[in-house]
């Protein structure tokens, strides 16, 4: 237990430092001309994530320190019999734990927001709303932790308050979702693999998000607590949202990172397997959960055996889809590599203006940002950045200030 807590402390310390580094870098090391309204939406998502990492993780760190003191010098922070409280740990952990959900989810939203304009050839709809939504989610995530304790002995008078704050957080989350839908509206889609994963993310996250609104409601929460419904909701948000976004980001940025394209045919097989079997695994769990299936058991009621077996088989096939991905990775990177052009997706993003893979110095000169990042539907729009190398614009006309 002591080594476990020490390990947690080291991880927590690392998370704080990572968030600290990212926040300070984004605030101070933006390229000249990159005003706050020109910051790519992915960077906004990382800034919101970094703020959660730096401010929520210290609480986990302190909670772990108290646990360590309980185990080593015999304090009684979490020992109810000696004046402490086991609920104290739950409070401290979940004060970190719920923002942690957004630490995982927000970069996913950012990846989706970054990829959508590229494959719809349209500006990101309501860019400022998306950025504000991410900051709003980050702020509100500090006020919802008690919904994890609805069943754990929380004062019943506190439940409506935390039900309200939890439902409130669905508003900025909904803004981000609507920004995505607004970008897709009447767009000509290019169904490349990153875009397929982003579309799947929206499908999955809609189901995960809506069931989350149900779960914030105290009566529903109390009814389905500890069952497969919650489990399914969690997987639809984190796996259906984050992991699909992660895959979208990998297929999108791997050519930039490695200078090699991923194989499209194998990539599509991977996508369809992952999307279909993900839904076949977790959607039945909503039904099983509502029929009364509890978590953390290895035997099932006979009337739920069939659906459980179906979900289990689908889960193995979902696992197989990851093997397809790893096969694609090995195939495309080492067995039959195909060189990636500097900008295979015709993106306007800054990173696509340099070579693939990115040289160690990134750009020959520090680029000067000239305009907004997502002006895809404007043929007359100026170049996003002046690279200072006789490229898109005359470097002497732009100040570094």
């Amino acid at each position, binding site marked *: 237990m002591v080594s476990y807590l020490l390990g947690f402390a080291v991880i927590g310390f690392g998370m704080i430092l990572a968030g*600290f580094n990212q926040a300070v870098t984004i605030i*101070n090391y933006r390229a000249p001309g990159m005003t706050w309204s020109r910051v790519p939406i992915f960077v906004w998502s990382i800034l919101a994530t970094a703020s959660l990492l*730096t401010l*929520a993780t*210290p609480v986990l760190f302190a909670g772990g320190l108290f646990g360590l003191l309980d185990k080593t010098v*015999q304090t009684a922070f979490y020992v109810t019999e*000696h004046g402490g*409280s086991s*609920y104290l740990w739950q409070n401290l952990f979940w004060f970190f734990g719920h923002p942690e959900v957004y630490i995982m989810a927000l970069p996913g939203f950012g990846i989706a927001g970054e990829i959508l304009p590229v494959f719809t050839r349209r500006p990101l709809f309501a860019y400022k709303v998306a950025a504000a939504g991410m900051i709003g989610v980050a702020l509100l995530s500090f006020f919802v932790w008690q919904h994890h304790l609805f069943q754990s002995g929380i004062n019943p008078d506190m439940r409506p308050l935390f039900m309200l704050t939890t439902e409130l957080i669905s508003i900025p989350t909904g803004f981000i979702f609507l920004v995505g839908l607004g970008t897709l509206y009447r767009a000509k889609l290019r169904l490349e693999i990153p875009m397929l994963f982003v579309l799947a993310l929206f499908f999955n996250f809609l189901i995960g998000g809506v069931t989350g609104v149900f779960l914030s409601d105290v009566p529903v929460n109390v009814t389905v607590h500890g069952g497969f419904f919650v489990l399914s909701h969690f997987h639809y948000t984190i796996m259906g949202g984050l992991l699909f976004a992660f895959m979208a980001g990998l297929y999108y940025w791997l050519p930039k990172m490695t200078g090699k394209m991923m194989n499209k045919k194998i990539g599509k097989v991977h996508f369809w397997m992952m999307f279909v079997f993900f839904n076949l695994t977790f959607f039945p769990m909503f039904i099983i959960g509502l029929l009364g299936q509890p978590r953390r058991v290895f035997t099932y009621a006979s009337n739920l055996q069939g659906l459980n077996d179906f979900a289990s088989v689908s889960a193995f096939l979902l696992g197989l889809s990851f093997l397809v991905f790893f096969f694609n990775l090995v195939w495309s990177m080492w067995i039959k590599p195909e060189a990636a052009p500097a900008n295979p997706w015709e993106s306007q993003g800054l990173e696509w203006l340099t070579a693939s893979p990115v040289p160690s110095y990134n750009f020959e000169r*520090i680029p000067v940002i000239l305009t907004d990042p997502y002006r895809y539907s404007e043929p007359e729009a100026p170049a996003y950045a002046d690279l200072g190398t006789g490229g898109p614009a005359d470097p002497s006309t732009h100040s570094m200030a």
Partner: protein
Amino acid sequence: MTSTLNNSHGPSETPEEREYEMRAHISSIWTGGRLFIGIYTFMLASLVFSYFYLRSSNNGLLWRPDHVTAPRTYGLLIFGLSMTTSVLAYVGRKRLAKGSFSDFNVAAWTGLGTGLLALLLQILEMSHLPFFPGSSGYASCFVGFGVMNMITLAISAYWIETTAARGLRVRRELPGENAEFSSHPRARSFRADVASMAYFQVFVGLTGALLFAMFYLM
């Protein structure tokens, strides 16, 4: 100063780029110093939350039995020395801004001394507690406070020492320059570091007063 362009493959920096990097570097010290205070606020807030949570729960009427009393003499000494360190750091920074490096130097090294003395007393207090750490909710929080205070004082001392030593190095390496007003990158970076360090020390002083009141007076 770090540089994104300073490597063997890329071209050398232009003066404009160097100035951009310098400004970003100075701003980073400013932002980092305040963000560090934010991190620390949330960590100390966990202790404050735990204190009031266990106090209001009062499980088994064991929040604070009569025999559990904090050693006030130690507390007063530690608090007094911590406050002195904070005041010295603040005054040192002000004197540096007015052009007196020697005043800053004296304040910083004296502050380091008082900070280390406070740390030593905190360690002594923890090793001579008049109650068992797990005898009550209050006793547990008190030990938690003591450990956090040791970490805080150690960080404070480290930051003061490195800043003060840096000041001496800047003076030695830039003999013709005036560290208080020079526009040389090292001097600017040093002054930004002093400002961040002083803000953190003021924060330590203010939170120290709050925690002293909670654990020794309430």
